[in-house]
């Protein structure tokens, strides 16, 4: 009952924030303008172009991207039984950044034609690089998952992340100003990079990731009580780890590829979901996590796109302003995380 009430409440908030996101921006539109814009697709009117071509894909990207990153965080935190685990701490985001930087450097060496050949059209090369980078780290993590325990795996993920960040710095040292700007534009993270055609790729991958999360919900709930307990219930823990990693990649990699490395959503959303639902059962947390992730990402995107006079805020800056205090609060309030106290 509580889950249903929370879900309905979150869905209502999501609808309100979505409508606000369609109305508010550097060009302010009334609700009537938004409806008119939606009703005149292809007319070429300014309202239609702003609502349909610019804002709607951004809003949709924030909704599904936030939901996917939140779910990826939930999967990671459950798998590692660590409240600070997410795609960042596992090095997946850094892998994506490294892949993007690698493609940009290759493009600088081989020429822009390389990107055209690789992707079909310019700009998508960074996306492809990001996906490959994320996959590379994920495969390394998957291989190591067979040999080490969950805490060690988390530490290894952090180390891979640091390694990737070091390599990115070295790679960017050798780029020219143009190529460096392309990486920075992607690395700044924004949902505004997503265009309608991207949903052809984003949609199926995220749907598969969501399906994986739902299917794995039960064994993951069992895993919360420990590997031994889960195995006693017939869960193949090693196989589960690989499957969860796979689902996490399907959820996090496409979002990172198209929107850049979006921070904090995966880290804080599962905590908020647990607090609202009052349960650790993964099946119950999935809808709430997805909805909170969507609301948080969309709200942060709305703040970024408020009509600030001559100022542009960065998405990750807003998410950090929301996320960092929440994480600090979490650390201070959680007895298990505080440590060092009786």
């Amino acid at each position, binding site marked *: 009952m509580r889950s249903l009430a929370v879900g309905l409440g979150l869905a209502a908030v999501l609808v309100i924030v979505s409508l606000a996101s369609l109305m508010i921006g550097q060009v302010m539109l009334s609700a009537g303008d938004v409806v008119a814009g939606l009703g005149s697709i292809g007319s070429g009117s*300014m309202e239609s172009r702003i609502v349909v*071509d610019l804002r709607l894909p951004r809003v949709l990207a924030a909704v599904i991207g936030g939901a996917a990153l939140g779910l990826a965080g939930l999967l990671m935190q459950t798998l590692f039984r660590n409240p600070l685990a997410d795609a960042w701490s596992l090095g997946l985001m850094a892998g994506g950044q490294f892949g993007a930087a690698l493609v940009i450097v290759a493009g600088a060496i081989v020429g822009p034609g390389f990107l055209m050949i690789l992707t079909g059209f310019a700009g998508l090369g960074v996306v492809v690089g990001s996906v490959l980078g994320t996959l590379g780290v994920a495969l390394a993590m998957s291989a190591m998952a067979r040999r080490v325990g969950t805490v060690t795996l988390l530490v290894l993920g952090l180390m891979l992340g640091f390694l990737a960040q070091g390599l990115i710095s070295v790679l960017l040292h050798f780029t020219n100003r*143009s190529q460096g*700007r392309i990486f920075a534009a992607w690395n*700044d993270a924004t949902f505004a990079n997503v265009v309608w055609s991207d949903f052809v790729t984003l949609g199926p991958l995220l749907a598969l990731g969501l399906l994986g999360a739902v299917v794995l919900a039960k064994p993951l709930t069992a895993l919360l009580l420990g590997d031994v307990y889960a195995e006693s219930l017939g869960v193949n823990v090693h196989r589960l780890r690989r499957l969860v990693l796979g689902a996490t990649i399907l959820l996090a990699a496409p979002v990172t590829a198209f929107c850049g490395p979006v921070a904090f959503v995966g880290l804080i959303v599962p905590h908020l979901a647990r607090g609202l639902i009052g349960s650790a059962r993964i099946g119950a947390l999935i809808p709430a996590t997805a909805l909170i992730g969507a609301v948080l990402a969309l709200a942060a995107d709305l703040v970024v796109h408020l009509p600030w006079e001559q100022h542009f805020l960065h998405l990750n800056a807003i998410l950090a302003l929301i996320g960092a205090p929440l994480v600090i609060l979490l650390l201070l309030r959680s007895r298990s995380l505080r440590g060092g106290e009786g």
Partner: protein
Amino acid sequence: MIRTPVIRIAANAASDEAFLGQLGVKDRLVAVGGRVSFDDAVRQGVIDGRIGQIGYNWHAPPNLDVLLAVRPDVFLMRLSDLAQTPVLDRARRLGLTVVPTFAEDEPTYLGRAEWIRLHGLLTGREAEADRLFAQIDMRVQALKTAVAARPAVPMLWAYPAGGDRWVATVRGAEQAYLADAGGLNLLLRPEDPRQWSSETLSTEQILPVAAKAEAWIIGDLHAAPPRSTTIERVSPAFRDGRLFANTGRSNLSANAYDWYQTVFVRPDWVLADFVKALHPELVAEPFRFLKAVDRGVYR
């Protein structure tokens, strides 16, 4: 006191290299910012170690160790950041002769170019500098006169900067090029010396004016090609192929761009490019700093 003519010169701004180059004394450079000079000989000198690297003004304060080692007669120091002021004092206390330069900060493009007189004074090329500046001024006035009778072309100077952001030229010396070349900047803002010459705008803000832009300086070496083609679909500049980039004199493999060098010294060449872009019948010479670009090309 500076004993002239100076023979050994250090400079941490790329524009000062260009001033010296125009006066034919670039061989007097003993230290420059780094390895991205557009001048092949200077760049190679740095790579070979014959010319010291002291760090570019926009990147870092000058490296005093290198300056002491190369013993310049004068160090032309651009203070792009007031936080570097303590280094200026320190350099002087170490016995270096430092001349702060602010050519790139002048509010007008001719004001920037006139700094060549200082370079001429220092290098014993005063008459050459005066002659060159007079020539530049004369050409600029001639171009302005030629376009004065022509109808202004509605246009934009804005490049995509990632996500849904654009960096648009709205005022200052860069805007003056557009006005003097017979362009009507659709994003013109009131002059204000406290404000940057460019502003960051969203695609939504660009969209209404894009529909009126008949010509567009859309390419820049800092451009990040947008993924959305919404703007491309609405602008006559895209439909008619009147798109230009300021990367005409770039050496990508060397990370070198003359837009940051010779542009400050030869505004007559820059203005001629803009006039050619907007009123091609008035300028026969080929583009130098600008170049025509195809739809979808932003550099």
